[in-house]
């Protein structure tokens, strides 16, 4: 076995042939000295073929390297490990807009490498909470279930909790088209990270960018389903480092789409298992919360900087289960969630957003007088209250029959149906915020005034009975 350290003519790179063990995506290299955590390595195969890897643990006995590509065909006696003395970095320049890269930042659009203005480590540093600016600008998505009830604001991270077969990407596409609308003198950019997605999904988004004439404003990082799984751990970080550069150094309002975070978490689990770590819930590592936070928290605004990062991560809830660790931990980090429902999808409702478990925590910062309209908060609360009651009554009605309900309850039951078909269901159309709010009031006018519990009298006067009545 080649366990002697060899030195090339090149004095700068240190090469080792002391690979001792290969477990799944991990290489264990013995007696490597002076190696730092996070350092990138080149793994050279006999035919001069090269793979990339990253150091994830160092000790006197061995260095653990996660291989960012397939380990198929690697054998411990003939691989050579070259340490680069550099952590994973992304090349940054304003010319990056319009370009397409693979999951670890290599161009795949047939164009030459970019000439960087500077290079930045993909892990970044945490934003000082004191320096954060408060997100406060309303983003109109054109979707009533979001604008009216779970408002998105600039600088927010709002994931879409999807499930297999539900149209998450269509909704993301719509948000994308709409959020481009920015104020005068403001600039907009998209950073897209495809994490283990299929070719079909990837081309959907690229066509979407082309259709919206935003391809020249977007930076695309693509790790497709057939690409190495471990690469997925780096893809969102490449994307977010690029986004931070565009937002906070060049003043762009950046919309970041990360899809699909479920694939990311699975890659995380794969590495953890190969390292024989103690598994947490459902085999995911105990540090998954912290790890996800280092991705999701890279959104927001910075005081004094013009730009912003708004994140729309998309994830697939395994088995439609919202308590699964992936959606669960995500929901604890992000500022709300948009939850898609199979039941609504079956009923033909588009977008099939179940508003009850959906939430936007930053909604209050982006709505109200001067932003959307003064009645927004109370209107949304009232719609929620009636809809929740109506949904409860469905259960009762399925047992005792509709006739068994009081007139008042039947009203709620009918409201729940109308609300789904008339308010949430809007097909391909977009509604501006006034249309969404008015549509909400149209729904509420089925109820007599004394049934309202969340709306102040002044607002009732003005919007329920007043001039806005059709």
């Amino acid at each position: 076995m080649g366990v002697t350290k060899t030195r090339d003519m090149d004095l700068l790179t240190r090469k080792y042939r002391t690979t001792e063990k290969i477990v799944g995506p991990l290489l264990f290299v013995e007696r490597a000295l002076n190696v730092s955590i996070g350092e990138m390595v080149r793994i050279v195969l006999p035919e001069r073929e090269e793979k990339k890897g990253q150091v994830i643990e160092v000790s006197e006995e061995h260095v653990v390297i996660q291989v960012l590509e397939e380990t198929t065909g690697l054998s411990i006696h003939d691989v050579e490990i070259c340490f680069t003395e550099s952590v994973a970095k992304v090349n940054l320049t304003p010319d990056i807009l319009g370009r397409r890269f693979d999951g670890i930042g290599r161009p795949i659009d047939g164009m030459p490498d970019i000439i960087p203005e500077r290079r930045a480590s993909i892990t970044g540093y945490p934003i000082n909470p004191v320096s954060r600016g408060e997100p406060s600008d309303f983003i109109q998505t054109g979707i009533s279930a979001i604008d009216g009830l779970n408002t998105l604001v600039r600088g927010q991270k709002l994931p879409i909790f999807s499930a297999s077969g539900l149209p998450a990407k269509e909704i993301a596409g719509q948000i994308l088209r709409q959020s481009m609308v920015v104020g005068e003198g403001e600039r907009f950019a998209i950073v897209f990270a495809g994490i283990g997605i299929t070719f079909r999904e990837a081309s959907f988004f690229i066509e979407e960018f082309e259709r919206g004439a935003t391809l020249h404003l977007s930076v695309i990082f693509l790790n497709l389903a057939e690409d190495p799984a471990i690469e997925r751990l780096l893809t969102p970080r490449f994307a977010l480092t690029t986004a931070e550069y565009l937002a906070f150094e060049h003043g762009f309002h950046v919309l970041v789409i990360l899809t699909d975070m479920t694939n990311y978490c699975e890659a995380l689990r794969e590495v953890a298992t190969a390292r024989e770590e103690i598994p947490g819930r459902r085999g995911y590592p105990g540090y998954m919360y912290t790890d996800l936070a280092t991705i999701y928290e890279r959104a927001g605004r910075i005081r004094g900087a013009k730009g912003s990062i708004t994140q729309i991560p998309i994830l697939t809830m395994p088995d439609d289960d919202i308590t699964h660790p992936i959606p669960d931990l995500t929901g604890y980090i992000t500022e709300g969630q948009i939850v898609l429902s199979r039941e609504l999808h079956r009923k033909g409702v588009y977008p099939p957003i179940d508003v009850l478990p959906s939430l936007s925590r930053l909604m209050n910062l982006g709505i109200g007088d001067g932003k959307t309209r003064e009645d927004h908060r109370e209107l949304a609360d009232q719609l929620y209250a009636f809809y929740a009651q109506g949904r409860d009554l469905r259960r009762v009605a399925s047992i005792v029959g509709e006739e068994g309900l009081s007139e008042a309850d039947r009203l709620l039951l009918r409201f729940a149906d109308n609300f789904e078909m008339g308010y949430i269901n809007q097909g391909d159309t977009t509604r501006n915020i006034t249309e969404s709010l008015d549509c909400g009031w149209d729904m509420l006018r089925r109820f007599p005034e004394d049934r309202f519990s969340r709306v102040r009298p002044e607002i009732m006067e003005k919007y329920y009975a007043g001039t806005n009545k059709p």
Partner: protein
Amino acid sequence: MSGIITKISGPTVVAKGMRKSGMYNLVYVGGMRLIGEVIRIEGDSATIQVYEDTYGLKMGEEIIDTGEQLCIELGPGLLSSIFDGIQRPLAEIAGEYKSFIPTGVALPSLNRSRRWHFTPTVNPGDAVEEGDIIGAIQETTSIIHRVMVPQGFRGIIKDIAETDLLIEDKVAILEDGRDIRLIQKWPVRRPRPFKKKITSHTPFITGQRIIDTLFPVASGGSVIIPGGFGTGKTVLEQTLAKFAKSDVIIYIGCGERGNEIAEVLTYFPELIDPYTGYLLMDRTVLVVNTSNMPVAAREASIYTGITIGEYYRDMGYNVAILADSISRWAEAMREISGRLEELPGEEGFPMYLASRLASFYERAGMIECTDDGNRRGSITICTAISPPGGDFSEPVTQSALRVTGAMWALDTNLARRRHFPAISWGRSFSLYQLDDWFRENVADDWPEMRRWLMSLLQKEEELQDIVQLIGPDALRDQDRIVVETGHLIRENLLQQSPYSPVDAFCPMGKQYSMLKIFSRFYEIALKELGEGRDTDEIFTMERKMILKDLKNMPGEKFPAVTEEIMNRL
């Protein structure tokens, strides 16, 4: 003393040449001088948890042991500051290093150049011992900083200052030549000593109806607030920070969202304290370690927060510790334990989870600071818990439940229908015996009224189950009155909006009046039912409107208007 790094794995580092090191000693790691703490010693090697990102750290780099434990600085200037988990001043870091926090930052926690006006309360020749107050500083408009003799000092005052002082200046010199300075250091993991713990019979008033009326916690007690995501834990913690009756507030953002902290930092500085009329920040300390900041510092943040709290408690203040969330702290412990390859307990948490939680919650309490009992201070702990999947059977909730005196359980279903605060009246409880206080300070029949409300809600819930099974028609008329009244109480008494200028804070007098009005209304309803009226005639729109408007009436109007409202019903 120094050692050499032999292993790096995430936030833990192993070094050799550390034989002389002590447990929990503070060390500087590598050329970047990252801050770390020794958490295991085996022969010549020590395991260190690093409070900063280890990215780029190399084998063979040097470890410098300071020989001291992780300490925080105590002294004037704590109030209205914002610290990270290991008490680094975030505002100063932002001034020095722009918007991102780099690694290896070293700035003093407390301002070294600010002068404080010191007024002595003892004279040369006076005998003093540890914990005695020797002078006062007006730290902020609302809080007087009582300068205390540090632990381990005892003797006769030889000289005492009477001027404006810098924090490192000598404030007094004892006969034995030792000097006392304004600044003190204290190891965060060691609870500060006190003379005597006493049982508290005073409630921790929050201005939130469902809490004060149904589940009050004693001042010096501890409570957990478990809830799945989106149930309003953070909003509730922030509401408590604004309105809870307490002299000093320590708000610990432990592993939570950066944007929420941005919100706190934007609004808090403008908020007026409802009790003193001064700025709320004047009596608040923020300890913030967001989820993306280093995990080991998150573990320390809870200790940093409570130690600052104990310091003000020792001055004789009532301190509230609001921590959001303790689950993130437990997870930080789990992460570090995993890296140490310790044998895991339930759900991968370390075996010592329960004992660590217990020793944290036991730092709450009301204490006597002096032998004569003339100075008392308290620490009340309110911690949010984020159970995975909203399932309370998980180890953190269960371990915490065993040691805390109350639970305000947040309910996903209530939250989804936007019933806030989403505190479940069925699952929450409080073990504190505070009836006597309420009898003396609010009303004689308070405990009875409280029991009435609880039993009505209980009954309503049972009836709701029946309705779910066989429909509302099956209810008897009396039961229908219970259901309807219960509905009105849920909508108008239990719900309370933290964003409403009038209703966000509800004084005790108003809480009692509202309770009285609802119970009177219930009596009227029963009476009218007996007279043969049907429910639609009893629950008229006019009456519902009167009850609905109660929340939005200013607290000062009660109890003056109570009688009139009852008559209108």
